[in-house]
């Protein structure tokens, strides 16, 4: 499909894979979120064990012009620990649900990471120099005997091995009764929102003891609960506008200037149900698992169980485009309900900003069997690729995969019944500036690049 400059298909090549090789997956290693920072130099992952691992891209090697820098581990830290809520006798999982980077303002990097209940602001800073030559202390920190000090000297900075330190700068706690599913930083870079199943709160990055509740859909009588919030995001340009999606397949756009509590939406996006496809599972598969604005803010993309939809913010009654991710699963919904796969929450992402032209053209999302899909909005072409260690030679172009829904299976096609539903790609990310993508399988992180000519 079309890439930069038009006319050339992007050919994706394997670049790297991170994580354990063996098939026995440790629960704590399950990747739960993936996010590039604003420059693309850093790539963060969060896992079920509460850890954050940040990879840094090597500076481009001038001699190796045919490949971009590799990503290597830059920092690893324990962001969240398991907690116990004594009042309810329930564990609070340390799993990192989301990571969002702040734009860089000085030498240090900042990110927000959240588990089900608590959001933390982490500062990641480098230290590559240390002071040496103190008058009163030895190099190892022991105090010198004052009688041995005969001269004075000024301590100087000397180079040391690079040390990357992560320290928690703010902890935003005790504002969510339900499980946090989203965090989104506002375009003012001073505030952010956090959304749980029933409420959305607005925070100031500097203030941890207060947050404003801006959406509350909890019914007075919990027995009447039929709909929950599934995702939320701020508009990329308008700092008073945000959207949130629901388990009934609706998206609501709210303007914070209209009222303190935004329980009346400015716009409601909903596609009428297709009566021919109605089943007991219709509502479940319409539940939106992710919502992402395009870079311009004119469109937004939603992911439900079987499809990706592109919405024009000016048109509420139906999406402008719908892409089927794995329509062959529609006849298997009952089994997928039984094994709980129907509740899997797939994310989706836009391509990065093109170097020359700024428009959001390609969308990417994951599927089962370690497959992931890309849709080109211009050419209307799509491709299915696989994240697998079998294609692990660098610069090996990924071969498109095809699933045979019914009928005679062609060579190289895989039949629906052979798909591995344990191998799911829920989290993918696209470098903000280049054609580099990060795809997370259960416990491995794959990095693919386009083939540079």
């Amino acid at each position, binding site marked *: 499909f079309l890439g930069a400059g038009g006319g050339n298909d992007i050919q994706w090549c394997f670049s790297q894979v991170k994580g354990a090789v063996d098939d026995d997956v440790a629960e704590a290693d399950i990747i739960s979120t993936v996010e590039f920072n604003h420059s693309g130099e850093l790539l963060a992952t969060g896992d079920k064990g509460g850890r954050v691992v940040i990879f840094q891209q090597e500076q481009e090697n001038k001699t190796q012009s045919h490949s971009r820098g590799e990503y290597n581990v830059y920092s690893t830290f324990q962001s969240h620990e398991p907690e116990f809520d004594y009042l*309810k*006798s*329930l*564990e*609070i*999982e340390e799993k990192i649900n989301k990571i969002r980077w702040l734009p860089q303002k000085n030498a240090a990097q900042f990110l927000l990471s959240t588990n*089900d209940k608590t959001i933390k602001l982490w500062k990641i800073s480098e230290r590559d120099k240390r002071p040496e030559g103190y008058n009163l202390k030895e190099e190892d920190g022991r105090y010198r005997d004052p009688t041995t000090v005969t001269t004075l000297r000024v301590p100087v900075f000397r180079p040391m091995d690079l040390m990357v330190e992560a320290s928690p700068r703010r902890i935003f706690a005790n504002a969510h*009764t*339900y*499980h946090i599913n989203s965090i989104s930083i506002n375009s003012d870079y001073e505030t952010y929102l956090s959304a749980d*199943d*029933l409420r959305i709160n607005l925070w100031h990055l500097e203030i941890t003891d207060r947050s404003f509740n801006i959406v509350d859909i909890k019914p007075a009588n*919990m*027995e009447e*609960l*039929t*709909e*929950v919030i*599934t995702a939320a995001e701020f508009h990329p340009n308008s700092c008073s506008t945000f959207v949130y999606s629901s*388990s009934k397949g609706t998206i609501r756009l709210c303007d914070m200037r209209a009222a303190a509590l935004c329980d009346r939406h400015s716009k409601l996006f909903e596609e009428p149900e297709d009566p021919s*496809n109605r*089943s*007991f*599972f219709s*509502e*479940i598969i319409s*539940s939106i698992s992710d919502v992402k604005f395009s870079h311009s803010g004119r469109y937004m993309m939603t992911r439900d169980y079987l499809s990706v939809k592109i919405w024009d913010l000016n048109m509420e009654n139906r999406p402008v485009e719908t892409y089927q991710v794995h329509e062959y699963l*529609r*006849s*298997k*919904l*009952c*089994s997928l*309900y*039984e*094994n*709980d*796969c129907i*509740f899997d929450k797939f994310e989706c992402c836009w391509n990065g900003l093109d170097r020359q032209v700024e428009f959001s053209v390609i969308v990417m999302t994951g599927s089962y069997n370690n497959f992931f899909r890309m849709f080109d909005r211009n050419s209307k072409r799509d491709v299915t690729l696989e994240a697998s260690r079998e294609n692990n030679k660098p610069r090996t172009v990924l071969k498109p995969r095809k699933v045979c829904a*019914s009928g005679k299976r062609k060579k190289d096609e895989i039949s629906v*019944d*052979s*798909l*591995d*539903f*344990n*191998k799911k790609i829920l989290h993918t990310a696209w470098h903000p500036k280049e054609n580099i993508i990060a795809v997370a399988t259960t416990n491995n992180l794959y990095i693919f690049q386009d083939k540079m000519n």
Partner: protein
Amino acid sequence: MFVRGLKRKCFDGEEDIEGTLAGIKAIPSYNLQRQSLLDMSLVKLQLCHMLVEPNLCRSVLIANTVRQIQEEMTQDGTWQMINTQTTGQASLDRLVSTDILCRSSREQAEGKHVTSCGTFSKDFEGDQGQDISETMSTASSVQTPRNLQSNVWEMENPQENKGNFQKSLDQIFETLENKSPNSVEDLFSEVDNSYYDLDSMLTGMISNTKMGHCDGLETFSSPTNTASNSNCKSDLNELDHIVEILVES
């Protein structure tokens, strides 16, 4: 995970009915499938109550599915039929089958007939964990799903929950009273059969034209089998854990 021996044929109604007796038995009717889906949904809601807070989105979606099925069954008139089956046997079968699914694998291995029923009649002083109470109340409330909903959502309001909990327990005690002491043991000596029946009902699910497009019996490769089995096992292990905590307290 799936019943063996079923023919891989598209369910298209009359042609199959003309087949052999085995063929007729193999393809569940729409009503039976719908009932299986209802049972499966109720089991899922019960197994929600683990050590970690249940996923509210998932619970809401399952409860909405249950409600949809109820509504359809009410319109069909089949819901009335189930409600009038107040004979002890039918309701106890339901109690037993859903209860067994929640028993820990360890208990079953040791051959202990420690049942939720038994522990309730001995230990009920209002101190029981919500999980077991809700297991029992949802089991008995196949006929009264209204209780079900309040049990699912009131995780954070134990005070309000006690009202519903009390009601459900009353229902259980009522049905038990009609049985002589020995028959409880007899009931559980037949446990294995009813377990397999429900299991085969659940696993015999095929989608038909009413529920969506159909292209025959679905079989999944073994990795998905282990997925559902391990889900079940971990659920059972966690319920076991809860029982441990309660017993120690």
